[in-house]
């Protein structure tokens, strides 16, 4: 079994989760057993699964597993199903219900989602002090209860199964980093025995060990090494373990062989003996990592996996697209440097007033959003540039676009480049590590321009936008080049990893 370990399945995917989902589907198509493993508590994650066509057998969550919760159980709890204290009067407040006793004292607050499902029930003690918070899982049961102290800090957290049985307790203390940190974990195992853990990380190691004993010849891939790497590395049972380097390996991107490691991977790089190797997405990064860590195996597995139905879809021509539509697809974060795209677009717009720019991606940093909006206003582009937010379904967006622009400071691989090319959208990208050179043949299916060379980027865009024949040639080349991101091509690289896993376990047998 292949286990891909991460935090959770969020409502809005980042590139890492998106890559995991594509990998999972590709392996399923090739009849390779694989599961997403999530270790974070999330009462809402189950409602995100259908968004991404995930079935219960595709995902195993630590809290579900340890607490004995089926991935799909019931329907959300409604207010009338709650056993609230009697004798209280309810007053609606937006999506909340506030309850008061006969003396007018505020006692209980019920939080609901837009569909009327109960999300939480808070109880208040003397002086309106919140003392308890019950968290309801969207699958229809109270999954957790938090106890607060006078400063509204969590002191304890209880976890339950759908029958209401207590399965785990987390005890918290004030950490050195000024945040509540786990002081101890008590777990009531299915055999009736009690287990003590000093941290959530130790608990996760125990959970991963349980998985490792449940199935055979397992591969564990750490997809968020900063969060789950320690737990995988400290599993007690023998397993084949790899960590996936999803970003650049160093902080100083001008020196890729430096020892100034990206903090997300530093622990793993410094403890390579705990791993069987690592995975990177591009040939260039594999070469750089192999050079830096010659004693360690570095596997290549592209995260840019384009499903066959996309590759086989009808091509969308110049006339079927929104004329002069340029898009950017990136979460609003400083490292994506979306201000560069706005400035490049300003140069294009000055030559082609009909041109428009849509920026798709969720807001990871409100400051970045404000700066972008201010810049758009400053450049008098309000009518031409839109921040469109996050979209689950990107295919129609790509099919309407004429160019994708990418100006990141760095990437592990720019997933959006492969996606855009697969939809016949030529890509104009700065020449950063890693990704553009993996996918773009400059002048054929897009353009790679020097970093920060806004004029060069604008020039190639203006030329192609004004020449439908040239644009059409770029687009057709984009479609053609996408075969390198096919499921088949990606599966070939995973076959290497699967073979290495098999060899690891064969060594044990011999």
């Amino acid at each position, binding site marked *: 079994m292949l286990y891909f370990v991460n935090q959770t399945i969020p409502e809005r995917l980042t590139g890492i989760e998106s890559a995991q989902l594509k990998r999972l589907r590709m392996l399923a198509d090739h009849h390779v057993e694989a599961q997403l493993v999530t270790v974070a508590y999330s009462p809402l994650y189950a409602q995100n699964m259908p968004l991404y066509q995930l079935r219960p057998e595709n995902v195993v969550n630590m809290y579900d597993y340890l607490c004995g919760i089926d991935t799909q159980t019931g329907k959300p709890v409604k207010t009338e199903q709650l*056993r609230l204290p009697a004798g209280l009067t309810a007053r609606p407040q937006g999506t909340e219900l506030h309850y008061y*006793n006969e003396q007018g004292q505020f006692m209980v607050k019920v939080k609901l989602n837009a569909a009327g499902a109960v999300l939480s029930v808070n*109880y208040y*003690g003397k002086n309106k002090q919140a*003392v308890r918070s019950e968290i309801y899982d969207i699958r229809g049961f109270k999954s957790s209860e938090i106890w607060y102290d006078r400063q509204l800090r969590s002191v304890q957290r209880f976890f339950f199964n759908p029958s209401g049985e207590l399965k785990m*307790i987390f005890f918290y203390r*004030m950490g050195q980093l000024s945040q509540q940190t786990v002081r101890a974990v008590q777990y009531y195992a299915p055999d009736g025995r009690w287990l003590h853990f000093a941290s959530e990380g130790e608990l996760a190691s125990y959970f991963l060990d349980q998985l490792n004993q449940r199935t055979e010849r397992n591969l564990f891939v750490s997809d968020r090494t900063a969060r789950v790497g320690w737990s995988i590395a400290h599993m007690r049972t023998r397993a084949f373990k790899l960590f996936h380097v999803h970003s650049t390996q160093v902080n100083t991107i001008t020196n890729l062989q430096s020892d100034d490691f990206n903090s997300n991977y530093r622990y793993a790089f410094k403890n390579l003996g705990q791993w069987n190797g690592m995975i990177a997405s591009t040939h260039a990064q594999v070469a750089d990592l192999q050079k830096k860590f010659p004693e360690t195996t570095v596997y290549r597995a592209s995260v840019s996996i384009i499903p066959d139905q996309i590759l086989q879809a009808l091509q969308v021509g110049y006339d079927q697209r929104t004329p002069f539509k340029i898009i950017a697809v990136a979460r609003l974060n400083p490292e994506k440097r979306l201000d560069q795209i706005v400035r490049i677009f300003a140069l294009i717009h000055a030559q082609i007033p009909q041109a428009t720019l849509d920026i798709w991606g969720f807001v990871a940093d409100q400051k970045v959003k404000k700066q972008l909006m201010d810049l758009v206003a400053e450049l008098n582009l309000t009518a031409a540039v839109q921040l469109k937010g996050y979209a689950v379904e990107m295919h129609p967006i790509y099919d309407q676009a004429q160019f994708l622009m990418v100006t990141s400071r760095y990437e592990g691989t720019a997933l959006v480049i492969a996606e855009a090319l697969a939809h016949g959208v030529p890509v104009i990208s700065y020449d950063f590590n890693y990704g553009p050179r993996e996918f773009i043949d400059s002048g054929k299916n897009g353009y790679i321009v020097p970093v920060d060379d806004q004029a060069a980027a604008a020039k190639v865009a203006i030329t192609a936008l004004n020449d439908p024949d040239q644009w059409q040639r770029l687009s057709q080349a984009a479609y053609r080049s996408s075969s390198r991101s096919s499921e088949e091509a990606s599966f070939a690289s995973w076959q290497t990893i699967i073979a290495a896993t098999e060899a690891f376990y064969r060594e044990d047998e011999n």
Partner: protein
Amino acid sequence: MDYFLNGVLSESNTPIEVKMLQRLTTFQELGRAAKVVLCGYSVNSYTFIQQHHLEKNVVSCYDWLQEVAEFKKPALRRDDLPQLDNYQRENAKGGYAYLAANRMVARSYVNKRGQITHVNYYDESEQRLETDQYDLRGFLSRKQFFNVQQELVGEQYLNPVGQVCLDVAYAQKQPVYFNLIRKQRVFTEQQAFWQYCLAHILVDPEVVISERREYDQLLKKIPGKLRIVRLYNANFDGDESIAQIFLIRKQAQFVNTHTVLLDEYTVSAAELKQTWQQILTTNL
């Protein structure tokens, strides 16, 4: 029915409890049905009650809260904690220590009869996380939780099948929240909480006596015909609105017509019976 409000009963009863129990007999001789009401939490009270055949004369508030009723199983003994079998057990003073390597993760305590009374759980620094108290009738009765400063932050009182009946939150060592989960009642004041409980436990109260100062204020809302406060060890500074009679031990405590001289510690049984007869006849 007459009721005497007190805390707990045990082998180490104080003279207050001893005299209260003697009064039960006095009241019976006077033809009155009376019961002791225990408002304090104790895993041992039942043992005393059973040994002294007081089952019909004592009612426990916590038994009512925890739905104990007639539940009775053998008390837990050292091998009845299989949940701790993942850890090395070693003898320790007053019980057993459970170790992960050399670190203690839990410690159980037993009484002279080898019955488990409580189990403490500890963090990495061997600071207490939790105390589980076991009722000698054979069930986990109360869980107490402690913060890193070792202050009590919350308590859960369980019924014999393990369901939480009462959840109490503490702030600065004081209870600030009482949730009677299964009875669907929530309170922020201790007085209101106890008044609710007593309103359900006391059936047709006539004479109600507060044996200890901490229960005096509870009399106020009890609809008895005669409410009495004992002032044996204190000068009369009580709230006259809570009771009709304040029993005093010394002549000097006489301050008004509400005070009645009755020293249960020193007078003979016959004299006691006569005085109570007089009090009841005069005031009922």
